């Protein structure tokens, strides 16, 4: 690890202090490029969550420094946090790559800058999240206050550890909540480093608490805690169900979920072929295929199908898989052994169910969790690889004839996170984008994430929206205040 700018600890971060787990347990975190242990990290469990929630609750008490702070000063703290992350960008990118396996060039030029922009964006919102005054009937004066919800549990995934942390912290802190965050056990390191920066810039103790640990223990403790007022989770749809259940059997805490997807990417025959091939490749293979919004059902119009498949295979074969610290590398390893095995299982199922393997299909190295860029042609809608989220570098290409057919097939999924359409025709672009049941539709592009634009899922892909102004809703309680007045005047 290169020069360490700020010391941070491999422990649990509560009240701006570092703690061992109450039960003294630790867990190893692995470098997925080698399979070797990087270090051991304190493993938070129910008792640690208890401590963290208490700290967050205290920090949220009426009269606390955090509650009395000017909104603009909350914004300034977030802005300073962004500055620190920018300062330590190289170190954070390195740590992210080490722990997650994503290419360093991507960590440095995509993940970290997006984190900085996200925090700056929400810094600006802090003093702009306005309530309203409302002309109600009768001799009353009515207004709303946008108040923070309280203690927010946040459970984040391992595919974009830093970025997901920023997506969660940005709106929660801008609106004045306090946070108990559980980071993924596969990738706890960068989040802990950010914890040290949170302390450095001067957030009051207890405002942000970070607990590394496992889902069934620490995660479950957050989701079912009686003093956690809201829980936000990003991860699998399966766990999303558990979170919601835990909320309903405990205190009906507010729930926002950003879950899985099986996003359709529709290529019409009039699209710019070269651009469509490259973007579809990127849509699926980016981040080793470990994106909830991966374009994993590529629907190609009949007349260009063969050419599209051929060129996609050509492109996939050129994809450089290898050491994530090599600047030429496009694709690193999958995050861990479990994911690696799961993806290989899906590839077998594809072959078994009759899809045509066009390239790849196996491990790409002797050690580490590398998988060859894989493409299936002649994929049918009912095959497992066309229905389930693979979360790996496996592309499914399907054929369609008409617009109405493709809209129906694209929507025939329990998921509804993202979608894309490639066409030069203005009417077709609108017709399809309006017809798709997805929280995000990209037209002639893919994976374009502006922090200013909301993101989230229809159907089983989630509840609520993150990013943009909409993202603030999930962290706000609206209080309506009505005052009796002697006589109303407009």
């Amino acid at each position, binding site marked *: 690890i290169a020069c360490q700018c700020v010391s941070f600890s491999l422990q649990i971060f509560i009240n701006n202090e570092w703690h061992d787990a109450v039960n003294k347990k630790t867990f190893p975190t692995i470098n997925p490029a080698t399979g070797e242990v990087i270090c051991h990290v304190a493993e938070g469990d129910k008792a640690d969550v208890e401590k963290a929630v208490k700290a967050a609750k205290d920090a949220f008490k009426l009269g606390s420094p955090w509650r009395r702070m000017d909104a603009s000063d909350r914004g300034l703290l977030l802005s300073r946090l962004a500055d620190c992350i920018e300062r330590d960008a190289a170190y954070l990118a390195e740590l992210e790559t080490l722990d997650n396996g994503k290419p360093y060039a991507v960590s440095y030029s995509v993940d970290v800058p997006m984190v900085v922009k996200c925090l700056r964006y929400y810094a*600006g919102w802090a003093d702009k999240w306005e309530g309203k005054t409302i002309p109600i009937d009768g001799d009353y004066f009515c207004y709303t206050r946008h108040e923070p919800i309280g203690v927010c549990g946040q459970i984040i995934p391992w595919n974009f550890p830093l970025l997901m942390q920023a997506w969660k912290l940005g709106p929660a802190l801008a609106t004045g909540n306090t946070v108990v965050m559980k980071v993924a056990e596969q990738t706890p390191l960068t989040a802990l480093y950010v914890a040290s920066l949170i302390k450095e810039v001067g957030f009051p103790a207890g405002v942000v608490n970070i607990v590394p640990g496992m889902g069934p223990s620490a995660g479950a403790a957050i989701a079912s805690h009686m003093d956690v007022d809201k829980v936000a989770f990003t991860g699998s749809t399966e766990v999303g169900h558990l979170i919601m259940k835990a909320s309903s059997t405990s205190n009906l805490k507010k729930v926002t979920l950003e879950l899985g997807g099986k996003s359709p990417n529709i290529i019409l025959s009039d699209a710019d072929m070269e651009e469509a091939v490259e973007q579809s490749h990127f849509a699926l293979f980016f981040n080793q295929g470990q994106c909830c919004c991966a374009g994993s059902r590529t629907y190609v119009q009949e007349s260009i199908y063969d050419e599209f498949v051929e060129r996609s295979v050509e492109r996939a074969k050129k994809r450089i898989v290898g050491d994530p610290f090599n600047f030429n590398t496009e694709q690193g390893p999958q995050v861990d052994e479990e994911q690696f095995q799961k993806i290989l299982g899906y590839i077998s199922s594809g072959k078994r169910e009759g899809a045509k393997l066009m390239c790849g299909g196996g491990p790409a190295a002797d050690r580490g969790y590398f998988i060859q860029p894989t493409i299936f042609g002649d994929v049918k809608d009912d095959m497992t690889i066309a229905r389930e989220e693979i979360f790996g570098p496996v592309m499914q290409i399907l054929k369609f004839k008409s617009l109405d057919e493709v809209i129906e097939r694209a929507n025939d999924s329990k998921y509804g996170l993202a979608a894309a359409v490639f066409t030069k025709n203005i009417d077709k672009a609108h017709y399809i984008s309006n017809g798709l049941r997805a929280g995000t539709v990209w037209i002639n592009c893919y994976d374009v994430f502006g922090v200013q634009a909301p993101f989230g899922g229809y159907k089983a892909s989630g509840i609520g929206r993150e990013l943009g102004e909409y993202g603030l809703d999930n962290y706000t309680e609206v209080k309506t205040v009505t005052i009796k007045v002697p006589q109303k005047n407009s």
Partner: protein
Amino acid sequence: MTGRVNVFYVRVNVELTASRCFNTLSVTGSAICLLNIEITLALCVCCVPRERCIFLFFFIKLKKSIFWNLRRLFYGPLLLTHHQPVMFGKVFSTYNPATGEKICDVQEADKADVDKAVQAARSAFSLGSVWRKMDASERGRLLFKLADLVERDSAYLATLESLDTGKPFLSSFFVDLQGTIKTFRYFAGWADKIHGSTIPTDGEYFTLTRHEPIGVCGQIVPWNFPLVMTAWKLGPALSCGNTVVLKPAEQTPLTCLYIGALIKEAGFPPGVVNILPGYGPTAGAAIASHMGIDKVAFTGSTEVGKLIQEAAGKSNLKRVTLELGGKSPNIIFADADFELAVEQAHQGVFFNSGQCCTAGSRIFVEEPIYEEFVRRSVERARRRTVGNPFDPTTEQGPQVSAEQQSRVLELIQSGITEGAKLECGGKAPPSKGFFVEPTVFSDVQDHMRIAKEEIFGPVQQIMKFKTIEEVIERANNTEYGLAAAVFTTDLNKAMTVSAALQAGTVWINCYNALSCQCPFGGFKMSGNGRELGEIGLKEYTEVKTITMKMSGKKS
């Protein structure tokens, strides 16, 4: 001297800063300030038991050299940048109002310079320019950086502001500079949050709006808060992506020029901000009537506001926003927290030597507490320390100019002539500089000039009222409608009066509680449009409705 002695020694050597900034100052037209100040600030605070004496020693030495010799800079051709003044050597002087002495000469912009500046602003705004192609979030970054630079140079800027306007240094530092920094930061945050909408139109159409910048904005700022007013103008204009031709007041051009240097340092593309010191009837008029300026924003007197609107009407119907004068009522009910009301009413009118458009210059006091309120207000006004703005105990500095001073004294005279009761003050103290004593009039009648005209000086008018209906009517009986306040502990009175007052801002149990998040502007002849807050952005955007024919509409 016995007791604990704390000595703070702060040396602010501005020579380097000034050299760097003024050397590279990129100001279109002839806006080049020829100033180099080395400031040595020695602040000695001595605390003596029981009796606190605070001494401040402040030395300002105008150094007679920058890079070349001063004489050449002042009188010779200026080649500091490639922007040369059109009229070589035409300058005006800016004065220290605390002494009446000249600080320095500043290049005076005229019509030809405005033409050049507009050309620069137009080309910076052309489609495909760096500024037009820039991400909104990046515009925000630049504004945020500007705020950081202002924060870095706070001490220098506050010194310069006090030197040029005469306002107390501590007030410059803690009020003006903070207000400036916060305003820039606030609008920095808006840049990428100015949302258009998509609209469910009838028929087979898809409609969306884009909030686009208006274009070249002329901005004319006053002398009472030179820095803050500059920030109020630049913040929203730049956040929305406009380009600017800004004229600071001729009385107080210095800090605005320094901001020009910081704008360059922050990295705004050339031509986005152009600053032209000069006079209203020449440079100001040229801006207001320019065919290449799309919008003009003016803060100043109602009289000039009318001229601006007229010039816009006669030229190209440029959009006009105006923030003008006021004669703001401050209503004190008998149930109010008395201490608070006296102090706030005092600050409400005397703050900034009374040179606030929001000044609470008509104090309406409910009959039962009238005598006592007058007595306490006079007592408070007598205690008000008037003097050297660089003395930390000073509450009130001079008026900004000899002209303002004589205008205030003339209005005081009219008050005496028309029969108001002069309770204290009323004249200029026998020192040099443009000072006016804190003045209180009681038994003021609504028809008197001092109750109708904006005095813009440290003169408090106290009137009596009996009923809530009466005071609402009297408070609203003015051509102005900028601000108002009510002091009461009764919720119903607060709600009733605040709803009934015709004013752009109403303060309840406080005064001058301005903040960049809250809109500010005037009803009636106090102005047009609002500054600050989200609504302030509206004044710097054109809304474009785009409607597309679409087949097969779905909800």
